[in-house]
């Protein structure tokens, strides 16, 4: 089995999985605790529309998808703040618009539907060095922003108390949704549009079941998110099944275990 990870594409797959798993789970803790689980799905589909646009313009899809998805994330947050519509409604609208736009863009030019479909389901075994560099930069950015965890956690615990203590909660909301969009976009290549929400939600939900404190929930979510990548990849390699599916099913297995074992 070990020799599999001497293959460069398997090494890249492992590294990409660890980075994406860790990043998505870290932000997933905030997403789950703020009851925004649907946001991962919505932004994944925004990323899909961005990818379709990039393919249409013959650009590297990532460079088009990133600004597109971040823009949609900021718009969702703006609509949530400005209107009395629920979070799920605001997300649902942009979700639908993104899918409609993505499908429309794909139909505009013949021949690239297969490329776009690859993004729907992801292909962790075809991760390029460029993909890895972008993920690494994003991980570095998240490390630099780690001191903000305490404010994000405080506003998640009680938005009103955070506001009363002069925390710029709204600014943090925009920053967070932009970061979530970034993580979702760079993950889409690896996990696929259909499954990225699982990377955001399942490890965090599992961590929630076994943690007494928010700090413990954050740390265990990152551990679960990264650790489930290895068995998932091994299963993908040995059983010749899609890696994204294998990883998500591993995460789900851990969730089931936590559910069964919790006190």
């Amino acid at each position: 089995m070990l020799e599999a990870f001497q293959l460069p594409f398997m090494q890249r797959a492992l590294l990409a999985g660890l980075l994406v798993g860790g990043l998505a789970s870290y932000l997933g803790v905030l997403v789950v605790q703020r009851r925004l689980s649907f946001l991962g799905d919505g932004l994944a589909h925004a990323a899909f529309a961005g990818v379709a646009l990039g393919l249409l313009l013959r650009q590297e899809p990532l460079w088009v998808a990133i600004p597109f998805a971040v823009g949609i994330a900021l718009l969702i947050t703006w609509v949530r703040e400005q209107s009395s519509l629920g979070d799920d409604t605001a997300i649902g609208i942009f979700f639908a618009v993104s899918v409609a736009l993505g499908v429309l863009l794909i139909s505009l030019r013949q021949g690239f539907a297969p490329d776009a479909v690859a993004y729907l389901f992801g292909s962790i075994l075809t991760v390029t060095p460029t993909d890895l560099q972008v993920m690494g930069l994003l991980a570095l950015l998240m490390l630099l922003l780690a001191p903000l965890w305490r404010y994000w956690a405080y506003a998640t615990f009680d938005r009103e108390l955070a506001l009363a203590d002069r925390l710029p909660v709204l600014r943090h909301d925009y920053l967070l949704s932009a970061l979530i969009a970034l993580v979702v976009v760079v993950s889409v290549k690896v996990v696929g549009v259909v499954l990225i929400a699982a990377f955001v939600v399942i490890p965090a939900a599992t961590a929630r079941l076994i943690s007494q404190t928010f700090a413990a929930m954050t740390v265990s979510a990152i551990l679960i998110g990264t650790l489930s990548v290895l068995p998932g990849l091994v299963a993908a390699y040995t059983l010749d099944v899609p890696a994204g599916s294998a990883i998500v099913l591993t995460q789900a297995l851990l969730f089931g275990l936590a559910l069964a074992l919790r006190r």
Partner: protein
Amino acid sequence: MAAPAVEIEQYSVRFGEFQALQEVSLEVPEGAFVAIVGPNGAGKSTLLKALLGLERGSMRDGPTRVVGRIRVFGHPPREVPPGWVGYVPQVKGFDRSFPALAIEVVVSGLRRHWPFRIGREERRQAAEVLEKVGALHLANRRLGGLSGGELQRVYLARSLIRQPRLLLLDEPATGVDVVGEADLYRHLEAYQAERGATILMITHDWEAAQHHASAVLVLNRRVVGYGPPEKVLCHECLSQAFGHVGHAHQVVLGGR
């Protein structure tokens, strides 16, 4: 002369079509204990939030229009050092699903952000203030497992740990039994005696308010009455304010 703890002049708040507060004017001297009574929807919570600088917290109810002037210790609410003000929100607003220990909630009141780890000195301070409100045994309990009364104590400790000059409490006695309520007043009075703090507290229990507060504010979007309890909550004053007393009691007591 030092500025009063709270000065409100001709203050009105409107959420969309809803007039929450209308031309409220009052002054609270430092060291006072003011009980705020009034029916549901009378703007009591809106008034407390205005003192915290939160009246424009959300656009979700439609555009908020605010006129008038508020000063807390001589400053506009948003410019008061946050450590000067302690706030205990309504118990029904608490999110119990947040994974946290009681001691973390208390320490967050000191740090004004969420603790990843709690240092030894913070732990000592938190234990001290939890003990004062009779909740030391709750320190390492999970938030989700606490009763309403226990939560109130933890949140009271959270607001007291920063040793505020002004303490704002939104119905802290709701969901608390009679013994718990007597305890609450005891803790508040002890803190006030220790620090000379000013307390504004929303309550539905005007009898308890009468015994403990130095002043009562009867609010029904406007100031209906404000002054010493025996003057404000007397039969005649209420009937004067509301027309007849049966109705007045209903209004003041929120249907109780």
